[in-house]
Every structure is written in structure tokens, then in C-alpha cells.
């Protein structure tokens, strides 16, 4: 009897593990529940206790994979994998003043079997995916800007041409070409500014919708569409410049035409 009691007292409790909240929700687990964890589907696995439920830091690199994350104490995971005293990587914090590159080079020469790299290099490599996405977005952005520029030019041309009777009258009563040109240019810039304001409003609304949709879909607080003041300013300035350019070209064509010709065409 005493032996059984001693065995029960000496029996090691299952080790703890921390699971992310999405997994806890998917499997209806709470702190204190016991789970069996296996490395392979056919392996016997090990009993473990849910010691904590945590919210992982949002990571854009893994969000689309929609994977569940679990955290172990290092010896527990190594034991589970049958790879005791083996690790994937070691993080090294240097004392202030030590150059990471030179420290990495020195450590790298110590032995074969591992590679030492400064964090900046790893960060640069792991962000390559985002650089590709960013280049793609930029290329799509350029195509959209070209399309908008042509669209704007076309609309401005039509808009200014609509004013040919007014322009003809103004020219016939003695208004100078420059004044007519400036008036048309001003009108074009106003239209462009109004369009830009409407576009910014539309972009703000769509970014809210995009963030709400993807945030809900991937259960993350990451922001997928970001309308920064810089982007807003860029959009407004670009549309104003394009509007001025398009309006200027159309107005120049109009003021170069003789008033009587304009009148006849009206």
C-alpha cells in the first residue's frame, strides 16, 4: 500500500505546453486539460497538460498558412522528437559595442555544422517574400496610374471641349487667350481635386472593408491595407498634377483654335 502511494507521489506529472487561442477554440481546450502530442501519426506520443493559452504575435509571414502554433519547454520538445540536446538555432545577445558582423564571423570559424549570421541578414532574407509582393504591388500601381492618367486626360479633353462655345464667346468679346486658358486650367484642377478627395474617401472605406474582411478571415489584428498620410498626399498630388497636365493640354488645344471655328463647331 505504501509502495503504491509512494509510486503515485513520485509519478511525474505530464509536462505543460502552451497553445494558441485559435487552437484552444478549435479543439475546445482550456487550461488544465490533458492532451496527447505525437511527432508522427503512428508514434505513441506523450501526454501533456495545457499550461497556458496565448495569443501569438501577428506574423505576416505565416498568416496565410493558417497554421496552429504550440509552445513547449525545449527539453520536452527535444524528448518528443527523439533529438535530445539538439536544437535548430541559438539566439546570441552581444554586449554593447560588439559589431554583430565581426562576432558572427568569429563564431562561424569555431566549428562545422552550424552557420552564424547576424539578425539583420536573417531579417533581410526572411523579408524577401514581402519584397516580391511589394514589387508586384508597385508594378500594378504603375499600370493603374497609367490607366487613370489616360482616363483623366480623356475626361478633361471632353470636359474642356464642352466649353468651346463659352471659350469662343469669351475670345470674341476680347478676353485674352491666357485668361481663357487659366480659367479652363483652374476648372480642370478643381475637378481633379474633387476627384482626388472622392478617391481618398473611397480608398479609406475600402481599406476598412479589406482589413475587416481579412482580419476576420485569418483571425488576426494585422492590417492588410494601409492608407498612410504619405500615400494620401501622393494620390492627391498625383491626381492634381495629372489633372493640370490633362486640362492644360486640352485648354491649349482650345485656345489655339480660332473663335469662329469654335463657334461653328459648337
Amino acid at each position, binding site marked *: 500500500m505504501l509502495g503504491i502511494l509512494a509510486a503515485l507521489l513520485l509519478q511525474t506529472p505530464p509536462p505543460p505546453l502552451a497553445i494558441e487561442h485559435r487552437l484552444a477554440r478549435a479543439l475546445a481546450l482550456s487550461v488544465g486539460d490533458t492532451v496527447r502530442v505525437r511527432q508522427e501519426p503512428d508514434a505513441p506520443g506523450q501526454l501533456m497538460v495545457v499550461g497556458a493559452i496565448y495569443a501569438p504575435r501577428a506574423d505576416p509571414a505565416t498568416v496565410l498558412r493558417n497554421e496552429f502554433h504550440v509552445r513547449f519547454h525545449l527539453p520536452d520538445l527535444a524528448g518528443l522528437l527523439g533529438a535530445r540536446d539538439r536544437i535548430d538555432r541559438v539566439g546570441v545577445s552581444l554586449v554593447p559595442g560588439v559589431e554583430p558582423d565581426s562576432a558572427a564571423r568569429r563564431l562561424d570559424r569555431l566549428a*562545422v555544422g552550424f552557420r552564424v549570421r547576424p539578425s539583420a541578414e536573417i531579417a533581410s532574407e526572411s523579408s524577401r517574400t514581402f519584397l*516580391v509582393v511589394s*514589387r508586384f504591388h508597385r*508594378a500594378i500601381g504603375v499600370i493603374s496610374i497609367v490607366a487613370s492618367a489616360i482616363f483623366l486626360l480623356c475626361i478633361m*479633353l471632353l470636359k474642356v471641349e*464642352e466649353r468651346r462655345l463659352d471659350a469662343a464667346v469669351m475670345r470674341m468679346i476680347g478676353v485674352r487667350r491666357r485668361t481663357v486658358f487659366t480659367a479652363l486650367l483652374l476648372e480642370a484642377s478643381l475637378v481633379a481635386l474633387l476627384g482626388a478627395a472622392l478617391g481618398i474617401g473611397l480608398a479609406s472605406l475600402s481599406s476598412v472593408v479589406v482589413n475587416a474582411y481579412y482580419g476576420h478571415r485569418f483571425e488576426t489584428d494585422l492590417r492588410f491595407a494601409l492608407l498612410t498620410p504619405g500615400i494620401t498626399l501622393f494620390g492627391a498630388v498625383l491626381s492634381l498634377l495629372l489633372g493640370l497636365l490633362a486640362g492644360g493640354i486640352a485648354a491649349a488645344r482650345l485656345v489655339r483654335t480660332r473663335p469662329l471655328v469654335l463657334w461653328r463647331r459648337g
Partner: protein
Amino acid sequence: MILVAAKNLARHRVRNALAILGIAVAAALLLDMVMLAGGMERSFERMLLSRGYQIRLAPKGTLPFDTEATLPGAAALSARLRADPRVRAAGAVLGGALFTVSGDSLLPLAGLGVEPEGQGLYELDRGADLVPGDTTGIVISATVAAATGWRSGDTVRIISGTDPQIARASSERRLVVRGVVHWLYAARGQRTVGIALPLMRRLNRAAGDRASMIMVKVTRDQDVEPVASDIRRLAPAVEVNSVTTLVARFRTRLTYFRQLSLILGTISLFVGILLVTTLLTITVNERRGEIATLRAIGVSRGGIVRRVLLEGALLTLAGNVIGLLLGLATARYLDGILTSFPGLPAAISFFVPERGAVLRAAAALLVAGSIAGAWPAWRAARAPIAATLREEAT
């Protein structure tokens, strides 16, 4: 009537040229987005079927080579599958890190242990292939050949299991390069080598009959799903993926690109419609007198509607032709950007120019452009004849 519509358009060369250019850019973007929406899947499917293997077995709950988990009883299972009369070929694959010595440092290699009697991972470019039971041979990619200078027949050093504590390799073999092969699923610049599965197990000290994946080629396509179901019953601890299921899971991971293509495609279609509608509305307004005169001399409302619709269709058609060429050129450029994703198999393309996609995009824009003329055409046909003529005369 087409000639009349073309002449009407030619009356305003600059504005119509700009409109055609605008429609062309919208058509190009639409075409690119249609290609992007379906291209990735088709390209992925084509890559998976490049050697005719329709089924992949992976550890339960995983995709092939997505994790480091391995399958138990792999070679036994693949041998059993090969015995099935419906199966033409089956082979297990085990992945692992290998190294070779280059100068005074180690060159990392992506190692794949294969069963030569049923491998679907590579095609022989030159030299000889591995044979079943080959314990001294290795096949290499052109990238490895370029990095190391190895040629068929060379004897090379292959190392595995480097141990930092004893500062040397824990296992080393001298192997003979049998040939240079093209790895179908390798990323650009990836240094991949292949050896026989038993040798890979010995080098990596992998316990038991384990593998990362088993590939199965079924003789008749209609037997794929029945064979997959039978394997699920035979080995319940194994994830059985047919090409269809793999494509479906791939599609889930690339949701972002599909949705982006849908949004941008819709925007470009909308821009095209807006451009045609605006242009035709203004043109119709300018020609109110002319249209009223036509109506006064007996041209029917239907005739007026047809003329205006035809002008819209002609504008869209011209924009479509230019947009097609522009779209193919931009697709090539955008594909160059996206295929530089790290680790992406070189065989994957995002923008696949297929006749169906091109026709769908062109037809969508042509229909949309023609319909875009409906509002101005209706307005033109409904204008009161006498009032308009009086207005035009004063």
C-alpha cells in the same frame, strides 16, 4: 452601318484615340487578372502531373514536404502499391540535408532519396540514371554541376550529419555521378542531388522504413479516386492527396492573389464601361441635331440605337486588340516579379496565357463596352425630334 460608325469615330481623332488607349490599358489589366486568377492553378496542376503521378502520400495532416514529418513503412507500402494492377508506378522519397566539400568549406545540398523504379521527381538530361539498389551513384542538377564542376563519372564526396560538438562530419561517402537531371519541383538555383533511398537512410541515420512522401502513378485516370480511396483504407495514418486535392489546398493558400485578381479585374472592367459611356454620352449630346435630323427623315429609333451601340463596340474592339498585346507584355513582366518568390518551384507560373483566358477577357470587355453604349443610345433615340431641331436652329 459599320463604315458610318467608323467615320463618326474618326471625326474626333484625339479623344477617340485616347479612349481606345484607355480601354486598351483596362483590357490589358483585365486580361492579366484573368490569367492570374486561373494561371497559378493550371501551372501547379501541370507541374504535379509532369511525370504522370496523380497521387501523393504524406504523413497524416501534412502536405508533401511541408514539414519534416515522415511516413512509416514507406518502401513496403510503395512495393505493395506497385503490386496493384491499376498502379503503373510508385516510389518513396526521403528528403534530407547533405553537404559536399568545396574549397575549405561545406557546400549545402538538398538531398532526395528515391526509388529509381518509381520516381516522379526528375527527368534525365544527360549521363545515366540511378538503378534500383544503386548504393554508389548520385544524380545532380545542372545547378550543382555548375557550382561544383562535377561531371558524369566523377567520384565525389558527400557528407551528412555534421556535428558541431566534434567539429566534423558524422557520415561521409564517396559516390559516382551517374548523370545530370532536371528536378521538376526544385526552386530556381536550388542545389539538389538524388541518391537511392536506402543510401539516403544510411547517410541520414533515419530509423526504419521511413520516407517523406510516396508518389503513385495510376494507369487510367478514372482509377485515380478509387485507388486513393483504397489507399486511405489500407493506410489510415497516411494523408492521401490526389492532384485535385492538392490543387484545392494550393488554391486556399493563394486566396490573396485570386481575390486581388477579382477586384482589379472588376475595376478595369468598370473603368472600360465608364470610359465608353462618358465618351458616347458626350458624343451623342454633340450630335443631337444630327440624330434629330436622321429621325426626321425616317430613320427608326432602333436604327439610331444600333448606330450608337456599334460605335461603342468599335471603340471597345480597337481597345481590345491593343490591350491584348499590352496585356501579354505586362503579364510577362509581372510573372517575372512573382516567380522570384523564394523557394517557389521554377516550373510554376502565375500568368499563363491560355486561349480560353484571353477569349474570356476579350469577350467580357467587348460585351461590357457594347452594353456601356446602351444608356447614351437610349437617350439619343428618345430625344424629341421637333424640340431638338428647333433648339439646334436657334
